[in-house]
């Protein structure tokens, strides 16, 4: 069982035309896999995750096919997706901590959400309490108002809620970025714990912080300007990436032990192309140190060069050939 996304294209409608925010994504997440999704702001990572669960205007479904556990997801149809949301596919939104209604007690809020999904609160309660134990939240939180919870506690509460129905796919969009390092670690580890206990089958963790992914993800997918650049097992992405963008990105990250006076890191010069009218060929070519003629004219496909290692780069294809 797996999530299979095939050539998914989702554009943003604006006055000046379509912004090609997600322009053809093909990838698979297997059961038991935690896939990290990383890239710069505007690379389409949030578009990808949002489109899988709530594709609403100004987002526009263009083409593509999404299969979850051998069943096609009608992501273009808001109504039909209701059947899958929360139960089969669930999300922990970016600002989950502020998404709670401040004048509702947590328990009341949970029961309302369950009711809207036609799930009985009473019979779910024992499981809910077990889950609270799992994330080390006291059962008393159900009688508390959101304001009484700290940021980390809210984040854990939302995690419990979004996984209550044992969804097949859980997406976590930048859920650790607003947290302190110590809380961040706890929340990230909890994601792994949820997977280990098979409360969720597969996870897509979206973040700009690659070092978090290194800690918890099984595989990492890198996006650039609406396209997939590279996907590989975590250790491969960190230690021996193949796509020039991934290489530059990884080498620009400061780590404890790296000092300006001893080893100066460099960023990637230039900036991503505008997606309103993206250039032909490879979208990274303008910033790429190894770009050549072919990158200008032809768009590199996202191909598997080794088992589980996908990239989209002509130079690397040549090397591999």
């Amino acid at each position: 069982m797996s999530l299979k996304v095939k050539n998914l294209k989702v554009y943003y409608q604006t006055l000046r035309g379509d912004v090609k925010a997600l322009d053809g994504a093909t990838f698979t997440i297997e059961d038991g896999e935690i896939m990290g999704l990383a890239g710069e702001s505007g690379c389409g990572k949030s578009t990808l995750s949002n489109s899988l669960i709530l594709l609403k205007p100004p987002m526009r479904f263009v083409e593509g096919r999404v299969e979850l556990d051998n069943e096609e997801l009608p992501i273009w149809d808001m109504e039909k997706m209701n059947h899958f949301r929360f139960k089969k596919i669930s999300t922990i939104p970016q600002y989950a901590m502020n998404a709670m209604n401040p004048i509702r007690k947590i328990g009341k809020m949970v029961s309302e959400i369950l009711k809207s999904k036609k799930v009985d609160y009473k019979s779910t309660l024992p499981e809910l309490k077990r889950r609270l134990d799992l994330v080390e939240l006291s059962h008393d939180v159900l009688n508390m108002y959101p304001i009484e919870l700290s940021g980390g506690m809210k984040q854990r509460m939302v995690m419990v809620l979004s996984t209550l129905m044992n969804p097949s796919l859980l997406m976590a969009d930048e859920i650790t970025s607003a947290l302190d390092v110590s809380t961040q670690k706890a929340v990230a580890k909890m994601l792994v714990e949820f997977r280990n206990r098979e409360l969720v089958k597969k996870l897509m963790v979206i973040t700009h912080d690659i070092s978090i992914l290194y800690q918890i993800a099984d595989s990492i997918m890198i996006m650039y300007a609406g396209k997939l650049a590279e996907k590989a097992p975590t250790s491969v992405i960190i230690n021996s990436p193949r796509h020039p963008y991934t290489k530059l990105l990884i080498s620009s990250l400061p780590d404890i032990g790296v000092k300006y006076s001893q080893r100066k890191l460099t960023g990637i010069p230039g900036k991503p192309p505008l997606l309103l009218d993206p250039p032909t060929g490879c979208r990274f070519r303008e910033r790429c140190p190894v770009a050549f003629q072919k990158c200008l004219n032809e768009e590199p496909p996202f191909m598997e060069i080794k088992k589980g290692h996908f990239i989209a780069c002509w130079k690397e294809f040549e090397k591999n050939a």
Partner: protein
Amino acid sequence: MTKPKKRINEILYFALKNKRLRVGLIVVLFFLILAFVGPLLTHYQWDAYVGPAYHPPSYEYWFGTTTFGQDVFTQFILGLKASFLVGIIGGGIGTLIGVLVGFTAGYHGGMIDEFLNMLTNIVIVIPTLAILLIISVYLKVRGVLIESIFIGFTAWPWAARAIRAQTFSLRSRDFVDLARISGIKPLKIMFTEIAPNMMSYLLMTFILQFGGAILIAATLDFIGLGPTNAISLGLMMNLAVLWGALPLGMWWWFVPPGAAIAAIVGALYLTNVGLDEVFNPKLRKL
């Protein structure tokens, strides 16, 4: 690359596309033009007894005549003009005081804010009518101008509250801090950094105050606390009721002023909602 002009164009695009805004503006403009072109179409004085009494609308007297034979159309036109005057002066004063109080309270915070907030709340709870009754005892002759000023001085608290909240949220933005560490004085920061960000908001506040002032004036006039030396739409209705237009079935005397007030105030609120949709990208529909 996008040019700065685009932003203005974008606002114009959404403004022209917005139905509420279009309808609202057309109605307001219609009455505004009528108020200024109208006097050319009539050659009567509003208080002169110019024709037969109890006369329904006719070619000679477009809106008919009053119980005393005054021309209703002339009264209507001048009343319309008075209403717009009240709206502009009353709404203008209300907005101005509201802006000053709101800016100062929101920017300075602390004790100044507490004090201005107290003042605002006091003015809100003062019964306007009671004060006006007292004033009318002292002022034997009241004009539209006095009335507008009075309305302006009592209607500002709502504007002040809204603007205070808006200023409060803007002043915590980093660019205000940057202006402060650039050595710019607080008053200058208020007008060169904060105010430009609230232009759309100020415009909408003025429109609401404008409509509010017209409505309050009509209410005051209707219960006989309006101008003593001029005509207004509210006063027309007051006189109509006073002199038995209702039992006599003289609908032409009270329907035009009533309908005009309803239309103008309604259109102003419609304009406001429309502008809100134009300025607030979240409310825009593609």
